[in-house]
């Protein structure tokens, strides 16, 4: 019987290494066997880095043999979203325009996890340049939800969420600009974290919307995401937006009492559009928190209904600027058969970018163009301030906020591709966190029957996520709440 590590946590890896029950090489091989079995079903990985990983595993085994203390991620198989640069490993952003790009350096987050002993098993599929909510915008085909192959895993970090859910990696890195970690975590039944803006360096994260982009962790337990965040968090001189705010030990405080915490429940997040069985699960989740001694209070975040409109102006404006760099000159795809330099730019970008990326570049260029800047971009920045003010006001009286992560469970592949606006609305509960720059976490909160209980999906159940939002740099409290929620059995 070969080793099965598909449900292992970081603690399980370390226990096995310490006890000599399994070597890092054996753990790694087990992860690759799982990838070979599962990846053809769900298309989570764009690159699998077996040779490099096995060499690193051998190095970890040498350290274990010489009785060195285990680094926090020693021997842990990690998947990395393909918008995060990995030196020498092709990084495509799931785009044709970067189809052959091999980065000359690694992102700070990647350097930090590797310095902490992590073993990168591969690069995960996602929406092109992280633009999407379903992973259907990848130039290399959609990812399928491990719980139902007819459904999306969520997006844009769908491959990272699916890789962790299907046991192909212990933890993963993703990025979240409007919900791209939390929403797929919810759809795939894993834990996903949006750290505070500035908590994690974005050096080497391919930029989509710089005032909203965050790198964050996925895991199958709250303790694992807390461990991974503690490794990647903290000031980086190479990212001037990374905050010089001390990083607490997230793991050591997981067990401290949560009794007396005041939890705000914003009525705007439980209104029209929320599926009734998702609402029921999150209400059960709130009851678990109440049983742990938290006080649940109703609050209001009155500008919530403006968040999506605000986001799709700011995000597309920033995207149009950030993606101007793909011109076929210095890296990536270049169109053939061009008549001039400007013809080369236009043809390269037309052939290199997919439909959604072009749509966002066009919207962003439009809202920034002469005569429209004040009416759209400036207006959106002001509304962003109002959304943020709502949160600041709420956090004067509550310690954390609880909401559903997404209004529905995973939807069907193709269900929302015809109408971009309908797709955007699936981010309704997560987008506010990015606008305000506050930390958020999605923790599994029970299962619901597949909505259209027929066809090949008949009898299946889909996971639901509960979102916790906190004050700036207060991730530790979210981890404590979510960990104790999990230890209390969560919601079935």
């Amino acid at each position, binding site marked *: 019987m070969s080793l099965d590590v598909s449900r292992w946590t970081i603690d399980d890896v370390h226990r096995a290494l310490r006890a000599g029950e399994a070597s890092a090489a054996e753990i790694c091989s087990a992860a690759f066997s799982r990838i070979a079995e599962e990846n053809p079903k769900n298309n989570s990985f764009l690159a699998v880095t077996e040779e490099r990983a096995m060499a690193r595993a051998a190095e970890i085994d040498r350290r274990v043999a010489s009785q060195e203390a285990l680094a926090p991620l020693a021997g842990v198989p990690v998947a990395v979203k393909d918008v995060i640069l990995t030196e020498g490993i092709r990084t495509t952003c799931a785009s044709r325009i970067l189809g052959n*790009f*091999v980065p*000359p*350096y690694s992102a700070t987050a990647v350097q930090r996890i590797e310095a902490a002993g992590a073993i990168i098993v591969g690069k995960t599929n996602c929406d092109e340049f992280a633009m999407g909510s379903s992973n259907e915008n990848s130039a290399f085909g959609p990812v399928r939800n491990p719980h139902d192959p007819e459904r999306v895993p969520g997006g844009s970090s769908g491959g990272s969420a699916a890789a962790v859910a299907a046991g192909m990696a212990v933890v993963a890195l993703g990025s979240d600009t409007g919900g791209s970690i939390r929403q797929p975590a919810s759809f795939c039944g894993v834990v996903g974290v949006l750290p505070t*803006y*500035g908590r994690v360096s974005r050096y080497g994260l391919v930029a989509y919307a710089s*005032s909203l982009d965050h790198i964050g962790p996925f895991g199958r337990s709250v303790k694992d995401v807390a461990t991974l965040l503690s490794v990647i968090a903290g000031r980086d*001189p*190479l990212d*001037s937006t990374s*905050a*010089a*705010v001390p990083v607490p030990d997230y793991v050591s405080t997981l067990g401290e009492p949560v009794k007396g915490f005041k939890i705000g429940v914003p009525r705007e997040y439980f209104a029209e559009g929320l599926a009734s069985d998702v609402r029921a699960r999150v209400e059960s989740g709130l009851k678990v928190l109440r049983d742990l001694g938290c006080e649940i209070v109703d609050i209001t975040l009155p*500008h919530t209904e*403006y968040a*999506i*409109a*605000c986001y*799709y*102006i700011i995000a597309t404006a920033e995207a*149009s600027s950030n993606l*101007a760099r793909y*011109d*076929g*000159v*210095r*890296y*990536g795809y*270049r169109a053939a058969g061009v*008549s*001039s*330099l*400007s013809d*080369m*730019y*236009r*043809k390269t*970008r*037309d052939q290199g970018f997919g*439909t959604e990326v*072009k*749509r966002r*570049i*066009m*919207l962003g*260029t*439009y809202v920034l*163009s002469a005569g429209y800047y004040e009416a*759209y971009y*400036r*207006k959106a920045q*002001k*509304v962003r*301030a*109002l959304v*943020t003010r709502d949160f600041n006001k709420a956090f004067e009286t509550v310690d954390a906020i609880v909401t559903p992560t997404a209004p529905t469970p995973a939807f069907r592949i193709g269900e929302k591709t015809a109408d*971009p*606006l309908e797709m955007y609305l699936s981010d309704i509960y997560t987008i506010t966190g990015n606008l*305000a720059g506050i930390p958020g976490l999605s923790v599994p909160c029970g299962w619901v029957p597949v909505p259209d209980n027929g066809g090949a999906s008949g009898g299946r159940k889909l996971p639901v996520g509960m979102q916790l939002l906190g004050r*700036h740099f207060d991730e530790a409290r979210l981890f404590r709440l979510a960990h104790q929620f999990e230890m209390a059995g969560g919601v079935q």
Partner: protein
Amino acid sequence: MRITEKDVLYVAGLANLELAAEETARLVADMDSILGYVEKLNELDTTAVEAMAQVLYEAPETLTLREDSDRPGLPQEKSLGNAPESGAGQFKVAKVIER
């Protein structure tokens, strides 16, 4: 309609995108629908609100600046490693200046 085909083609020019005819038609419809939706923001009176350009937290102004010191950049060979076309230590593109 807020958005016409002429608008889309003008913006595509600004964005250096060459659009196929069917892409243009689809974008007219999509952009019109999305820009119609975002007009919702005009329900709010924001005259007294300061625009939020980025996420701020309490910190001294220069805290996020790194020390101004030398550090090696990427070597030329690595910098050119991903170039579609390069030569003589340069990125090569189609001729720009006629003579």
